[in-house]
């Protein structure tokens, strides 16, 4: 019989027993042109355990990972595996040493198939993991077969023929994990793996992590989410400003403590909402229909309304039509049917520009692709949507001074770091890029703010800030359409919650009488009135 993935797992597990994979980081330092990203970082990772790393945006987590995986060279300090000091000249060395990484920004090639992505770079290697294959020819079929076997034996089934660009982020991450294990990783590093996952997917991921631990593979788990850390990790190390400030057994640390270590101050984890009198409806969506780029209808007759002074949360598992719904509302996608009214005016067939003019603000899901022009300065990005209006311009002429003054205000008000309005947006960390977008959208005090995943990948501090801004907007009597995969976010912010499933809004419920469970149920489409009441 051909050696399957399961065989090689067992085979490897045995291997691990003999020599414990033990990763040691000693005094690692790395600085870039302007920032010291890592300063004297220490880390010990025991075999078969999960070690969490917590830290604010820009704390230096990814930089550390990139050094461990041979992408960056440390300025100083050592990396040791099994007590042997390693000098990774390139990722190849790290891979051969058994380091497997799932990077924060996926390292997948969208235009290629799952199998192609996974075997890429290993086509020449021959061992139990990879069935015999030609050194010269690339055989799609054989690659697909071996990938399929491995993925199934890992309990992470994927279609090896699928093009990556067609996969959900959750699936893409699965591909990344299989990719790492296909290279027979002895240490698996996950950089913010859950930032993009649905609760269900997160649970599945944790199962995989535990399974790997059982096989003796240690996992380094980077996250901003305290409860996740508590759920999956045994040890936690907190980074702040490039330093490792604390390492402790997870059991001994409360969420509040962890947050405090990360941010260096106390953080309100549960944002409180004061009562706001909800007014008449601002956004009125009536059995809206819209299709995705591949012409399959993703929004199948959705109706709901968002009222003045309320946050309307849209929950749902990724890919159930939320994206298309939002794009149809803001005007990026043409509607197949139904109507969209803003303040009793039909905007269903207006251009994006007209809708902006009528008071729609939009925080897109992909902040780098759609939200910002990375090579523009912060100041220039802040005028992106309303450049034709004061204070940014007068009668077609840019008014630099005024625009800069405005920018300076916003940068301070929204605590963008560094507060340099001439810095290019591309040079900011993810969290701060998001702040720039929010500053731009909210400062227009819009009638309706459409926010998709506004806190994706952000640290508790940043999340706290952004939640505060949203609530503040709400307090000002504005309306917010909040689309999020994070149930907690929805539960803590939304006044009413609509659940999307298979392109329909299966239920709209009042936040008061909703439980995590009923919500989760609704998201999987298994919804019935009875359970709602109970």
């Amino acid at each position: 019989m051909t050696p399957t993935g399961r065989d090689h797992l067992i085979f490897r597990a045995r291997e691990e027993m003999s020599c414990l994979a033990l990763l040691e980081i000693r005094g690692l330092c790395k600085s870039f042109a302007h920032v010291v990203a890592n300063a004297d970082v220490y880390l010990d990772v025991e075999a078969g355990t999960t070690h969490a790393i917590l830290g604010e945006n820009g704390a230096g987590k990814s930089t550390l990972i990139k050094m461990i995986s041979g992408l960056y060279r440390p300025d100083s300090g050592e990396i040791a595996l099994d007590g042997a000091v390693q000098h990774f000249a390139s990722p190849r060395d790290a891979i051969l040493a058994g380091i497997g990484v799932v990077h924060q920004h996926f390292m997948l090639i969208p235009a290629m198939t799952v199998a192609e992505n996974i075997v890429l770079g290993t086509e020449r290697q021959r061992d139990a993991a990879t069935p015999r294959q030609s050194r010269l020819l690339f055989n799609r079929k054989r690659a697909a077969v071996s990938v399929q076997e491995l993925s199934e034996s890992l309990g992470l089934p994927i279609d090896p023929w699928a093009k990556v660009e067609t996969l959900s982020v959750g699936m893409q991450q699965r591909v990344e994990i299989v990719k790492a294990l296909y290279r027979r990783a002895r240490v698996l590093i996950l950089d913010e793996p859950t930032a993009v996952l649905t609760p269900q997917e997160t649970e599945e991921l944790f199962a995989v992590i535990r399974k790997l631990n059982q096989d003796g593979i240690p996992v380094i788990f980077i996250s901003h989410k305290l409860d996740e850390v508590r759920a999956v990790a045994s040890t936690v190390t907190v980074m702040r400003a490039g330093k490792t400030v604390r390492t402790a057994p997870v059991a001994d640390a409360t969420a509040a403590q962890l947050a405090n270590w990360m941010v260096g101050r106390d953080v309100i984890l549960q944002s409180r909402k004061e009562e706001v009198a909800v007014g008449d409806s601002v956004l009125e969506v009536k059995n809206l229909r819209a299709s995705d780029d591949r012409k399959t209808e993703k929004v199948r007759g959705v109706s709901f309304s968002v009222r003045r002074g309320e946050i309307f949360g849209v929950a749902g598992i990724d890919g159930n039509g939320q994206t298309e719904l939002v794009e149809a509302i803001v005007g990026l996608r043409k509607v197949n049917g139904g109507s969209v009214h803003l303040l009793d005016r039909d905007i269903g067939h207006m251009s994006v520009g007209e809708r902006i003019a009528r008071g729609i603000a939009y925080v897109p899901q992909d902040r780098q692709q759609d939200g910002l022009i990375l090579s523009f300065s912060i100041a220039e990005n802040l005028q992106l949507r309303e450049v034709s209006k004061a204070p940014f311009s007068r009668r077609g002429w840019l008014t630099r001074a005024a625009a800069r003054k405005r920018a300076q205000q916003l940068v301070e008000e929204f605590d963008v770091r560094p507060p340099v309005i001439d810095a290019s947006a591309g040079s900011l960390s993810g969290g701060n890029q998001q702040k720039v977008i929010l500053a731009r959208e909210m400062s227009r005090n819009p009638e309706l703010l459409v926010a998709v995943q506004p806190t994706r990948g952000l640290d508790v501090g940043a999340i706290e800030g952004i939640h505060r801004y949203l609530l503040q907007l709400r307090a000002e009597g504005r309306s917010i359409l909040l689309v999020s995969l994070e149930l907690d976010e929805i539960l803590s912010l939304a006044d009413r919650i609509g659940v999307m499933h298979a392109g329909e809004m299966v239920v709209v419920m009042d936040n008061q009488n909703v439980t995590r469970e009923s919500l989760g149920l609704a998201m999987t489409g298994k919804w019935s009135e009875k359970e709602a009441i109970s």
Partner: protein
Amino acid sequence: MPLYAVLTGLILGGVIMAIAKYNPFAAYAALFSGAFGSPTAIGNTLAGAVPLILAGLGIAVAFRTGLFNIGAEGQYWVGAMAAVWVGYHFPTMPWIVHVPLALGAAMLAGGIWGGVIPGLAKAFVGAHEVITTMMMSYIAILIAHFMVENGPMMAPGYVPQSPTVAASATLPPILPAVFLNSNLSDAFFIAVAAIVVVHIVLFHTTLGYKLRAVGFNARAARYAGMNVPLYTVLALGVSGVLAGLAGGVQMLGVDLQLTDTFQSGYGYTAIVVALLARNNPIGIFFASVFFAALSAGSQIMQINAGVSANMTDVITGIIIFFVATDRLYGYWSQKMRPRRPSSAAAIISGKGESPQ
């Protein structure tokens, strides 16, 4: 344009000339005197810079919007044809009307040829502008030949060339007493004016802001409510207008008629001009003068130093090469230049934005 790059190029060129048994010093002396040695020489150099400035500006505007207009040569000739046609009809028209009319025709023609057609093709079927502008350019040149080779624009008589434009449509020379019988005409002022206008539009108007935004990241621009197809057509249109104007002023200021050679080379040199100037209008002025000087000087270099004309191309190529590889000089400093989104290479492959 970085000086050391130019110097490196000149030195290397000198070495090559020495190998080819020319005296590099004599050659460069001739080159310089040919370019700046006398008022006439200066006049001709500046005159030679005019079409490069205008076409270069056009190409730069396209680059700024993430588009590669490789067909400026053809747009130049379409503009030239239009200007000459208007120029020799209506000989009775007053100067003040005739010149603007002729130049207007040139700009319109260039705009339609380089902008509207490839622009619409790009905006609506996504036809790559590199192909469309290139093909339109070849077509323009064949039509131009047709016009004068026993075609509708051929002047009566023996020689395949158009009639010369009426006096009322010519751009008068600048200070003929100083730059005596050089090619320098009021076209120069038009070019300078164009620089100012383009600079202001690009960096001080919302239109320019939007053009640049589309160029850097079309998706974000669309999400921000900008009409991307519109600005695509607009950018290529302006690009063509300027290239057409280049042809127009050259006809009314220097050539005064179409002769049966339709290879000015301006359209291609202008691409290099725009790139070396990093699509900066002011920089385009200096880059244009630089190339005009090389071209004018090379002729004298032949006459006075006997250096083959082709040698100038060799040297020019080397200089451009070293300007492009200027990072050689700052190689040690790890500080990487942020990838210019107007990097033509990024644009030709249909992208203004680089993934971060």
